[in-house]
């Protein structure tokens, strides 16, 4: 029997999510095209509220609908009462996340793009080992629930990841970067060129004794700051009481140069979609405005717990229940030019990447990490790579006093948009 008919009979509320993914990918491994893959996967996830209690089940076995329904109902019979109401349909802002060019991209085009990138890398750095992963998908999602909400949308993620290993004697450098969008992007070489520029700059190794000095986080380096902030603005962590920002809405937690936005409605961006994974329209959420905390990110459940509206931030994979999560996370650019920022630094370091981010007690804001790639700044100039340094600090105190935020900003790792951020003084351990 049809799954909806079965659910209508047995539950007051239900939600059915159907996902389908068709993906082609090619992998260059150690400068050679090695593997090509076609994946055709699909699944159904069901949430029910039966006798006031929430249940969940999911399956990739399209033939086993009866079992899926009975699993969801059994789950609900042991479930808990939650004040959750599946939403009525709301109209969403148009967001471009489907591109026929990507949808129709033949596997041979992925191969060619990979080859072009590989040739560019090897022309500049003949001794490196380069791996490239290219994939394009057509994702079809549909959500319906007992209110009559019935939405479906398609996305066409296109993703290129480049990893370069360079070993010169005992000097080892691994760098990676990627570009992921949901619209075809003609310019797929600029991020590779930037990566190569950094590799070139890193050839010269200079020494630094460490000590207290200004630290400039490059857009890539700001990841050290965004990872704990992403946790902190998550409504679930606020509900649980673990977010250091809990109870501080309206307070000036950060320097006035800091503004944070989560925006799931940007055309073509990797984490954009018209609706979130519960059928609530995605939107632009201003989280921190000139240092002042405005609010948090909620899905339906956490919104119900706080008696507020969902911010359209529900995210899920097939086998997991929805949770609030960031989409495209933006640190707003500032007013100072990068050149001027550098100019004021007599001796300092620029942080590009850190080893072991996201481990440890992330939510507290504390971090302490070796720098896997950092450059020394001397008398306003970037002079070379510094090795064997580490930094530690707490995001919540570092961002209270920011020397400058750059005008220049860029997308990093596809889902973060960030400027350069200068912290006037940090302890750099040598």
């Amino acid at each position, binding site marked *: 029997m049809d799954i909806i008919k079965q659910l209508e009979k047995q539950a007051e509320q239900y939600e059915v999510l159907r996902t389908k993914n068709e993906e082609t990918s090619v992998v260059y491994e150690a400068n050679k095209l090695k593997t090509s893959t076609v994946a055709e996967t699909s699944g159904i996830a069901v949430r029910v509220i039966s006798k006031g209690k929430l249940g969940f089940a999911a399956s*990739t076995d399209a033939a086993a609908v009866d079992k899926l329904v009975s699993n969801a109902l059994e789950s609900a019979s042991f479930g808990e009462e939650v004040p959750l109401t599946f939403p009525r349909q709301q109209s969403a802002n148009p967001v471009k996340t489907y591109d026929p060019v990507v949808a129709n991209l033949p596997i041979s085009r992925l191969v060619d793009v990979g080859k072009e990138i590989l040739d560019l890398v090897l022309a500049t750095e003949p001794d490196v080992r380069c791996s490239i992963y290219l994939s394009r998908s057509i994702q079809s999602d549909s959500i319906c629930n007992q209110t009559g909400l019935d939405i479906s949308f398609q996305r066409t993620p296109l993703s290129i990841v480049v990893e370069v290993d360079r070993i010169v004697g005992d000097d080892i450098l691994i760098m990676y970067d990627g570009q992921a969008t949901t619209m075809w992007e003609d310019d797929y070489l600029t991020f590779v060129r930037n990566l190569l520029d950094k590799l070139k700059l890193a050839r010269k190794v200079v020494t630094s004794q460490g000590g207290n000095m200004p630290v400039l986080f490059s857009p890539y380096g700001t990841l050290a700051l965004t990872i704990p902030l992403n946790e902190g603005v998550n409504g679930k962590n606020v509900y649980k009481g673990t977010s250091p920002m809990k109870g501080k809405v309206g307070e000036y937690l950060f320097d006035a140069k800091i503004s944070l936005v989560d925006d799931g409605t940007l055309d073509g961006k990797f984490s954009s979609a018209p609706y979130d994974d519960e059928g609530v329209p995605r939107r632009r959420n201003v989280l921190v405005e000139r240092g002042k905390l405005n609010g948090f990110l909620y899905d339906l459940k956490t919104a119900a717990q706080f008696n507020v509206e969902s911010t359209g931030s529900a995210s899920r994979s097939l*086998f997991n229940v929805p949770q609030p999560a960031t989409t495209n996370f933006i640190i707003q650019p500032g007013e100072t030019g990068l050149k001027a920022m550098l100019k004021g630094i007599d001796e300092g370091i620029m942080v590009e990447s850190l080893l*072991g981010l996201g481990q440890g007690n992330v939510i507290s804001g504390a971090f302490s990490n070796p720098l896997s790639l950092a450059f020394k700044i001397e008398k306003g100039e970037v002079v070379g790579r510094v090795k064997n340094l580490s930094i530690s600090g707490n995001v919540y105190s570092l961002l209270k006093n920011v020397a400058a935020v750059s005008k220049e900003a860029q997308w990093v790792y596809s889902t973060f948009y960030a400027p350069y951020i200068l912290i006037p003084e940090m302890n750099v351990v040598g």
Partner: protein
Amino acid sequence: MRNRIEDAIKQSKADYTEIRIEEKETTQISYQGKDLEKLSALNDKGGMVRVLIKNKGWGVATFNNLDDLDTKVDQAYQCAQVASNPEKIELADIEPVDEVVKVQMKYDFRDISLAAKKATVERYNNILRGTSNKIVDTDCTYSDNYSRIYFGNSQGTFIEDERPSVSVRIAAIGREGDNVQVAHEGHAGPFGFEFVMDQDELVRKVANRALELLGAHPVKGGRYPVVVDQNLAGVFIHEAFGHLSESDFVYENPKAQEMMVLGRRFGKDILNVYDDGSIRELRGTTLFDDEGTPGRHNELIREGILVGRLHSRETAAKMAEKATGNARAINYRFAPIVRMTNTAIQNGTTTFADMIKDIKLGIYACDAYGGQTELENFSFSSGYAYMIRDGKIAEMVKDVILAGNLFTTLANIDAIGNDFKWMFSSGGCGKGNQYPLPVGMGAPHIRIQNVVIGGE
């Protein structure tokens, strides 16, 4: 299923073809704080065809619809045509096997009611929450899954493999003002419900540790002699050394081969390290890997010298060595890659008391919170740690992060304990996009001189 797999393989025009079909049932129950966060029943059924055309490359097709395996074999063949490897890709020889792997569970978790499973995890959660009102949040997760895997290849191997796994993961989050601290423990293995039903003691330990961490001061950064407990020592050898012995890292990379050349000294004579998928009833036990190669005992470091490495059939052939049974995939969505199974530092002779008695100022680091390695550089957070003062364990310290260079650090291991233990931690290993893969880790206490500890 066997006939369908074998018939489809016969249709293949490729040099090598394999088909892996997986049926997996999962139950997950999770409490967070006072709330039942999740009670899920999941069914995952799907397959993968992987083919090799030697002078071209690998082609892979993954799918949920099992109705037409012949088409999937053809899709994979089309994919393999895309590449071109004039230097042929070869596979190391293995004996074809025809085996059924059965596992005995004392209390098969598929026969345990959802009510009983829920009651168990609820009891653990109540212990955590009842310990103190400073415990503001918890995460108690019970999970079981039972996989049945059918694997066949064009060289006559057919394996039907049962892989059960049961786990509890316990985390307590303590908070005092802005001070937030997390303590956690996991307990997981290829067993039945018996393995997770009486863990009240473990749960109490987690609650008390979270409270103790609230009162701990951050460690002062610097260089210290560090005594590492079995759990962290196991994670260390897995993360910092084990991944470098995975041959997909070295087989296409002459520079990495120089770094990992067999015969190179990695540590003092007391250091012995191995990986062994054939030991039964451990977290990473792999009687047959996902290419059908039997698991075996692989020595990696013997008396301080590098003597071996881990292989898939492809990396073994390329390096003219034998397949070691280390080609593993987390599920049918992924092709197997070189992975560890159960990795361990072999037992030594030093007692714990002897290890700490001459340390004037040092650190006793326990449990791992996570770690990352980039070739020879690593960084690990310990779950909790104590200062060692004048040969005695002293106050607890927090935010202890060990960082350093693998070669220097291994060479600085100057004592190996006589108290070897296998760990049954939950979670698993991540590599590429494949996470979490169940792995076993084992070690005695070890002492490392001159470790860089991050901190304030």
